[in-house]
């Protein structure tokens, strides 16, 4: 098979929209995802990420625009499109009346997969999800992180080349999130196309090759995480806290320091190439912040810049 010509995108959306009455949940978004890419939709709750995912997943009808998955329109070829996908929904919907391993077997049957394939496959996936010793356990008895890993294992039962992950780590503790990220990273390495939504910037930075920043159903920016940070923010950020009363009033006295100033209710952000130098300037003006912190710019800053709001409220 020739590898040189650019592969057609596995997912292609053009002016994709979904309206509920007057409400525009998704308002004309366009993007292409090539095979093997890890593509993220980053945005706050209610930005239209899950609705977009449901349209890609072939379970929700679009209002207008075009959408193809593996060249197929999910509205006309629902079963064919869904047969290509693995889906990890935002809310777990495991069958708690079944044991852990049986959840995988039953799900595999939806794809018409024979038991001779499913039995060893289920064991393999439980191993991958680090749930081998829970195979016979009731789903009820699993922790949140384990349920999430079981849901991911379930989504892999048909060996999909495209995996849709809607807020994969929301509600998990940091350790559980790291285990999950590790598993997802392995999938990415094995060439699976990952489409994920998140409102965690660290998740987006860790897992996404490229992402779109979504707000109010529209795409605000698109690019690799590092590129977005470069384009929409400075290299470093100086975070100052003067106490909740004074943050906004003191902002006036900080004018001219760094490239841009962002007064927030709880802190003031100064965007500068050199954070330490900016801090020296602040001190030289006779200002004494309660705390100061110099850090690298993140996607959070990109989002703040683009929308004027923070990502997690």
């Amino acid at each position: 098979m020739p590898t040189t010509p650019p592969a057609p995108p596995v997912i292609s959306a053009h002016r994709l929209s979904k309206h509920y009455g007057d409400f525009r949940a998704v308002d004309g978004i366009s993007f292409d995802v090539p095979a093997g890419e890890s593509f993220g939709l980053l945005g706050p709750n209610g930005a239209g990420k899950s609705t977009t995912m449901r349209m890609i997943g072939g379970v929700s009808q679009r209002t207008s625009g075009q959408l193809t998955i593996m060249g197929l329109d999910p509205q006309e070829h629902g079963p064919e499109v869904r047969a290509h996908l693995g889906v990890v929904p935002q809310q777990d919907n495991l069958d708690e009346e079944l044991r852990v391993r049986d959840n995988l077997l039953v799900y595999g049957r939806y794809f018409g997969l024979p038991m001779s394939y499913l039995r060893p496959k289920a064991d393999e996936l439980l191993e991958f999800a680090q749930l081998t010793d829970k195979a016979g356990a009731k789903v009820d008895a699993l922790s949140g992180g384990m349920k999430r890993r079981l849901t991911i294992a379930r989504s892999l039962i048909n060996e999909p080349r495209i995996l849709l992950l809607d807020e994969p780590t929301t509600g998990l503790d940091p350790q559980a999130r790291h285990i999950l990220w590790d598993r997802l990273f392995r999938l990415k390495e094995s060439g699976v196309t990952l489409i994920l939504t998140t409102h965690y910037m660290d998740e987006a930075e860790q897992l996404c090759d490229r992402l779109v920043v979504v707000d109010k159903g529209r795409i605000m920016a698109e690019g690799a995480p590092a590129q977005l940070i470069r384009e929409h923010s400075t290299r470093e950020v100086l975070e100052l806290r003067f106490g909740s009363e004074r943050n906004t009033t003191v902002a006036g006295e900080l004018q001219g320091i760094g490239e841009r100033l962002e007064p927030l209710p709880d802190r003031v952000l100064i965007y500068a190439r050199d954070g330490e130098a900016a801090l020296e300037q602040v001190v030289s003006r006779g200002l004494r912040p309660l705390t100061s912190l110099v850090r690298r710019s993140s996607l959070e800053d990109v989002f703040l810049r683009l929308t004027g709001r923070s990502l997690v409220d």
Partner: protein
Amino acid sequence: MTEPVPAGGQAVAPPYRLHAHPPEVSAARARKFGSWYYAEHVLRAMNSYRWTLLASSVGTPVMYLFAMGVGLATLVDRNAAGALGGVSYLAFIAPALLASATIMTAATEFTYPVMDGFKWRRVYYGPHASPLGTHQIVDGHVLAITARLTATTVVYFLIVALFGAAPSATGIAVIPVAVLSGLAFGLPLLAYSASIEEDKGQFALVMRFVVTPLFLFSGTFFPLDTLPVFLRWIGWISPLWHGTELGRALTYGHHVPLWLAAVHVLFLVVLAVVGLRRARSVYARRLGA
């Protein structure tokens, strides 16, 4: 299980070592057999409480047949001989009890588990993301419950036969009739259950104000025409009455003219078909929003 788990989790290979058939095959199979795949799932889930199911399918008929068909029957047979067309009270109520047991089971299976599918544990949303279509989720659910109703009814019939309450050779045909009655009641109820967004005790109301009156006023314990005319309509609209009349004709030769038998069957089939169609459209609307 086949290989030792590597220490530290470091050497776990990427997960694709076996090979699934291609997506096109999955989709084609799902289009063809999807309803059966979902039925399989529901039956597996039921299997986890099979002893409870078995105990109730044996316990219910034994209890009712002893109480009504043996206890109450001695009184009725002594005082009202001939009023039931020459059969024992036990033979008279056995087909009615059998059909009502099937309907009660249908009433349970087509209410709470539906709420579980849409809302409580969102069980429907798993298969909904797979190649299955929404109509196949409905059909599969119905298939599995039909299997459960059939099993319950078969057990019930065997116990009725042991009590000697189904003397006619055609008696065994009461099984499909009872299952049909269960579906005639259950499928419209399924459509209703699927339309409920929030549980405010509707199911308890259905049990109390629909299932119980039907059980009492469908010619179950006494012939429908012993009721005053203004109450008989309850029987006429009740799947239980239609099913029971057919059952009596089959188990002990109760006289039902052929045209009326056809009306009974037609009534039950129409209710079931309309209910199923309605349920499919409610499922499609709700899952595909």
